[in-house]
């Protein structure tokens, strides 16, 4: 049953550029990018039990990697950009994660928030390097080596770029599925549920948390790099702490106790935000209320409402 739904949704996703309006098709682009980001975030949140308030740091790393490569270094291959974003995400996450995973709960949240804001401040203040609050331009990347510079922008975005993104999302989903259902994934869940017991069973809690942290950062970097081309610009707000809060919100919205919950969360968040914004510019008011509602009444998110599953519990510490 689950597989049927999945196939239907995947088909629907691929059909969107042909059946839906261009506007809606372009909305799917940030959805797919955030889908990748959230798959990684939920490895850390839902499966390892760590709530980061600085994850947007890695989104920023990925986004600016794309900007620097295309507009400063003349590298236009999206494959290279994504690879670089992944590697840089890992390189930054390694030391940051090594420091942060020694702490749990609120201290972990605070440390990650601080790191995120360090990067934001760097992006904002060192404007000679980063363009300051105006950000940097991202030039249209080549897809699979092909320069599509002559295509009109919209055609490029809802055509080749769309399918490229869908491909990346599919690959990212496949990889994360394997990771989550591997012996490694099981170890992460033991750490989430009971770190003391996990240690007693020989699972090194800090080391595994670190692995999860780095992997989730790689996903965020890749997703961040994919956020750049549609708008053609990246700016420091990508790394701001409220952005980190928003992606945690998206994950919670969809349901962090399920594999596909975060994807659902990204989809609903983006569409709902768009719908609300078309009526009134105060989407935060609506979303804040939704978040409050979820936290109080429906902590397992939308997936929790559809699927009567295991009750959830974020790391007891």
């Amino acid at each position, binding site marked *: 049953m689950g597989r049927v739904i999945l196939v239907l949704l995947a088909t629907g996703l691929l059909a969107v550029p042909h059946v839906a309006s261009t506007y809606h098709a372009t909305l799917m682009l940030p959805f797919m990018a955030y889908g990748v980001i959230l798959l990684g975030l939920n490895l850390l949140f839902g499966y390892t039990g760590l709530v980061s308030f600085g994850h947007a740091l890695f989104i920023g790393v990925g986004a600016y990697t794309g900007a620097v490569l295309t507009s400063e270094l003349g590298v236009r291959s999206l494959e290279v950009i994504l690879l670089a974003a992944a590697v840089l995400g890992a390189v930054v996450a390694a030391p940051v994660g090594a420091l942060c995973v020694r702490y749990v709960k609120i201290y972990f949240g605070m440390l990650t928030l601080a790191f995120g804001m360090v990067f934001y401040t760097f992006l904002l203040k060192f404007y000679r390097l980063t363009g300051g609050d105006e950000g940097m331009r991202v030039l249209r990347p080549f897809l699979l080596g092909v320069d599509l510079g002559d295509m009109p922008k919209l055609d490029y975005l809802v055509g080749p770029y769309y399918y490229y993104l869908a491909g990346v999302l599919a690959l990212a989903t496949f990889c994360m599925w394997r990771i989550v259902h591997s012996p490694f994934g099981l170890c992460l*869940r*033991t750490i989430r549920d009971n770190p003391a017991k996990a240690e*007693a069973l020989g699972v090194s809690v800090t080391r595994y948390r670190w692995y999860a942290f780095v992997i989730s950062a790689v996903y965020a970097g890749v997703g961040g790099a994919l956020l750049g081309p549609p708008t053609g610009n990246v700016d420091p707000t990508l790394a701001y702490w409220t952005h980190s809060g928003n992606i945690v919100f998206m994950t919670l919205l969809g349901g962090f106790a399920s594999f596909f919950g975060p994807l659902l969360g990204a989809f609903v968040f983006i569409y709902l935000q768009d719908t609300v914004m078309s009526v009134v510019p105060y989407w935060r008011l609506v979303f804040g209320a939704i978040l409050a509602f979820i936290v109080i009444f429906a902590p397992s998110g939308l997936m929790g409402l559809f699927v009567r599953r295991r009750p959830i519990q974020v790391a007891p510490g």
Partner: protein
Amino acid sequence: MILLQAQGVTKFYRDFCALDGVDLVVKAGEFVSIIGPNGAGKSTLINVLTGVLRPSAGTVRFKERDVTGASTVGLARLGMARSFQLVQIFPDLTVLETLQAAVVSRLGRGTRLFASLRRDREVQAGALEVAELFGLADKRHALARHLPQGDKKLLDVASAFALKPELILLDEPTSGVSTADKTTIMDILVAASRRIGLQAIIEVEHDMDIVFGYSDRIIALHQGRVLADATPAEIRADARVVDTVIGRKYRGRR
């Protein structure tokens, strides 16, 4: 062969002395019970021996190696496992998954990111074997949080056993469990230890029936010190132990 040796183990919490120069030797083939009134330092001793706490002074040797202050994870890898006084389980994992986690750890497969857990025959077989040993096989798909208390305790112990350790330290494995279940658990424990090649068991225990029914040797702790370390018969005859720990009214069944 001496499996575990503690010498002069002392633990201070600021000014409070929880353990004062505890010496302890456990040889292969032994079932050693640690008894003592509340606050005697039994759990502290277990925590020091299993790497949860660093001793303020003294040494601990496991299989001839100095493991003083070693981490819990390191000790688990060396062949020392434990269960907890306040039962510790993974609430959102099933019984089978809990045991699988232990087997994964034992086989060193924790870093296999892309391998399928479901299709790992060794892990599946190993987990199922332990589940059957402990009578949890028919509940193997139940979530740990939904298990009755006795089964949670069994699972805590079973997952420690799934590591196939050489030495296991059990902290009150039958506390909070009904009398009927207690003997069941103990018999399962003894049978399982033979099956997995366990070499020695250290058990903190309050129930004197179990202590005298199963132990080769009894160590009585009192106010952080070893009061007596002898066979059950000798302990029963030791007036000091009877007064402070066992109580005069105890007749015993053996």
